[in-house]
């Protein structure tokens, strides 16, 4: 898949912005265009964080996305707010450790991953964002794992290469967990 | 059930302090300063005749917390707005609440001239050594060597001069009737700070001139410290540069 637009949302501190940055940067490394937009406007309030990423082979028009193809929701309020906006046929990725309610839509694919639990098992709950990124890549391979690895290596240069490796593990863990986990469209 | 024991109320929310969730970061002393101002307004019975002027900085929303009339001023201009209010309504109690970027950088002209005119207003001045709201840039009060987002290698006095001591700068002006510096870093200091705010408002009520209380405050977020470390840092690093005490006080209001 070449193009994608996505909104990722959660609490501040959950690494939402970083998730988007890794994805967008990986796309750029693969020669694609990408835009990354942090929370803006009313979304900026109240401890929530959102980011919008658009990836495309050619020119990107609007970096502002009202009706994303993909939603990554790291908490309940984000799911409630953004799930209704996902385009029909799109994809909703939910951190099942943080959100227990179902996604009230039958026209989108849903992937539920215990991201926080899985990250905790890997030693740091803050890597839940990378688990979700992995889940995303398994469902829509918009960038290669290799590009993601290069971005993480760049983000955690020596002497932090252990962090880079741990984050890669979180991504591959998320990929494995979500493979086949996507509920088909009903 | 036990019979009700006779209790005296030793602590409570001052009525002027609105009960609402705060937007300040954990460990920020803006909240303490708000409370002290609220207590003094209540204790002096000034609630129905006080007008506050909010500045531009993290305390821009002071009117969400203090239940008195408020006007929100442009960055640095609060003393001018307060002057306008007080000159037209000399019988009201008027105070500004300003940060160190607001008062001591962009608003230097307004504060000096309000003080020099002896405006009968009270200035609550929060010195937290950085610009909190905009993300921890250097303020005129930033300590030498202190790293901020615009002094990544630390404040260099050759480039930026030395921390501006506002209380010392204003105290000698004849229009200034009361000037003090207090700290919000421990219960004892907080109690002293409250006495000082009371005296500043009393100075205004007595028509004696301009009054200012400079409060050494924390900005854990801007400083990149935990709330507790920030309290310690304030006392260890700011006290030597910004000595506490009453620099000027009219005999009448000296308690």
């Amino acid at each position, binding site marked *: 898949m070449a193009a994608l637009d996505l909104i990722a949302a959660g609490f501040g501190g959950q690494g939402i912005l970083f998730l988007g940055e890794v994805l967008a940067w990986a796309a750029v490394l693969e020669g694609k265009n990408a835009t990354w937009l*942090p929370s803006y406007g009313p979304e900026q309030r109240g401890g929530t964080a959102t980011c919008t990423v658009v990836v495309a082979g050619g020119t990107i028009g609007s970096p502002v996305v009202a009706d994303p193809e993909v939603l990554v929701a790291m908490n309940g309020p984000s799911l409630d707010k953004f799930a209704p906006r996902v385009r029909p046929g799109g994809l909703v990725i939910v951190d099942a450790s943080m959100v227990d309610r179902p996604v009230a839509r039958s026209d989108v694919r849903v992937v539920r991953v215990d991201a926080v639990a899985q990250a905790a098992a890997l030693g740091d709950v803050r890597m839940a964002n990378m688990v979700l990124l992995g889940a995303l890549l398994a469902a829509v391979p918009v960038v290669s794992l290799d590009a993601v690895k290069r971005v993480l290596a760049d983000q955690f240069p020596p002497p932090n290469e252990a962090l880079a490796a741990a984050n890669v593990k979180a991504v591959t863990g998320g990929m494995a967990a979500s493979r086949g986990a996507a509920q088909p469209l009903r | 059930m036990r019979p009700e024991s006779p209790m005296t109320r030793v602590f409570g929310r001052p009525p002027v302090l609105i009960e609402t969730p705060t937007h300040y970061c954990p460990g920020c002393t803006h909240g303490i300063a708000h409370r002290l101002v609220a207590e003094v307004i209540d204790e002096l019975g000034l609630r129905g005749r006080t007008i506050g002027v909010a500045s531009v900085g993290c305390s821009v929303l002071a009117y969400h917390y203090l239940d008195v009339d408020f006007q929100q001023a442009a960055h640095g201009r609060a003393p001018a707005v307060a002057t306008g209010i007080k000159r037209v309504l000399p019988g009201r109690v008027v105070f500004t609440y300003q940060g160190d970027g607001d008062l001591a950088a962009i608003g230097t002209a307004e504060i000096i001239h309000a003080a020099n005119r002896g405006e009968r207003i009270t200035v609550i001045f929060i010195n937290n050594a950085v610009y909190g709201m905009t993300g921890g840039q250097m303020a005129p009060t930033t300590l030498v060597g202190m790293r901020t987002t615009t002094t990544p290698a630390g404040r260099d006095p050759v480039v930026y001069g030395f921390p501006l001591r506002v209380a010392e700068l204003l105290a000698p002006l004849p229009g200034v009737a009361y000037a003090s510096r207090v700290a919000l870093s421990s219960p004892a200091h907080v109690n002293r700070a409250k006495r000082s705010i009371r005296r500043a408002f009393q100075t205004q009520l007595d028509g004696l001139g301009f009054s200012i209380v400079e409060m050494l405050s924390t900005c854990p977020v801007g400083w990149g410290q935990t709330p507790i470390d920030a309290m310690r840092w304030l006392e260890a690093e700011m006290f030597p540069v910004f000595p506490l005490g009453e620099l000027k006080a009219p005999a009448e209001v000296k308690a």
Partner: protein
Amino acid sequence: MMPAFTKGNEAIAESAIRAGLRAYFGYPVTPQSELPEYLARRLPERGGVFLQAESEIAAINMVYGAGARVMISTSGPGFSLMQEGLSYLVGAEVPCVVVDMMRGGPGLGNIAPAQGDYFQATKSAGHGDGRLLVLAPWSVQEACDLTRVAFDLADRYRNPVAILGDGLLGQMMEPVVLPAPVEPARDVAWATTGAGSGPARVITSLDLEPEALEARNRRLQEKYRRAQQEVRWEGYRLDDADVAVVAYGISARIARTAVDRARDEGVAAGLVRPITLFPFPSQAVRDVASRVRIVLVTELSAGQMVEDVRLAADGRVPVRFYGRFGGMVSTPPEILDQIEQAASEVRAA
């Protein structure tokens, strides 16, 4: 070359350094603080001066004194405070680059993206009859490229040049290929250097004699006439368009997606994007207005550029306006809706 992946604010800062920036003066304000913070880290190590001033009023006057490639950046409230200084720069013909990353207004407003400073940037440099040249990038790459253009125009016309962006452009990240560094001439003929053996140089905007001040103004106006050759704009899918959307900066990007979606639905829509806001691409707008059946202007304001579009279109076609403001940002479906309304309006006619 592998592009960097950067925020608009930082791309402008790095591009300015590569354009030979000698000095930056500014005062913190959201949503552009990444720009001075980047320069605080990088400009001194590359031999330039970085100074945080005590206010925007001081900062623009430091710029007035710099006599070299100099930049200042701000957002709405600070841009207002710079107006007096900009008027002096224009009057004395002192170049500089001023960046305004617009936010919601009026007054303190908020820090969310907006385009409400169009009038203030394009209609007058403070008081008097002076103008800023105004460039409006729509992407991080263009913000980077136009920064170089801005310095060149400022020097060529000895006039302040504004880069008018918004909080969204400043804080979004995109790939950007940075230009190679240049080393501009250091001694400019007009600057007060205190080192001349020739006649003393005086920088002033004062002319006590009205004849002299009128002559100065004629010179400025002549300059702005010459600057008409700097007009830049871009058209997109206009060839057979019935509906021409006119938008600049971030609004134009949002509109571009809406135009594509309209085309998918069989509505012949196109986009006119002014890149220079002063000089305004009036001729281009006029030409397009003569070919299409209706024009839709969209801005993150209550309607500012639309006045220039109406002047240019000069009654040739109906000109409709759609704006969001106060920090609210329009979305492609919203603009698509407006395009469809415009299209059905002309179909009905």
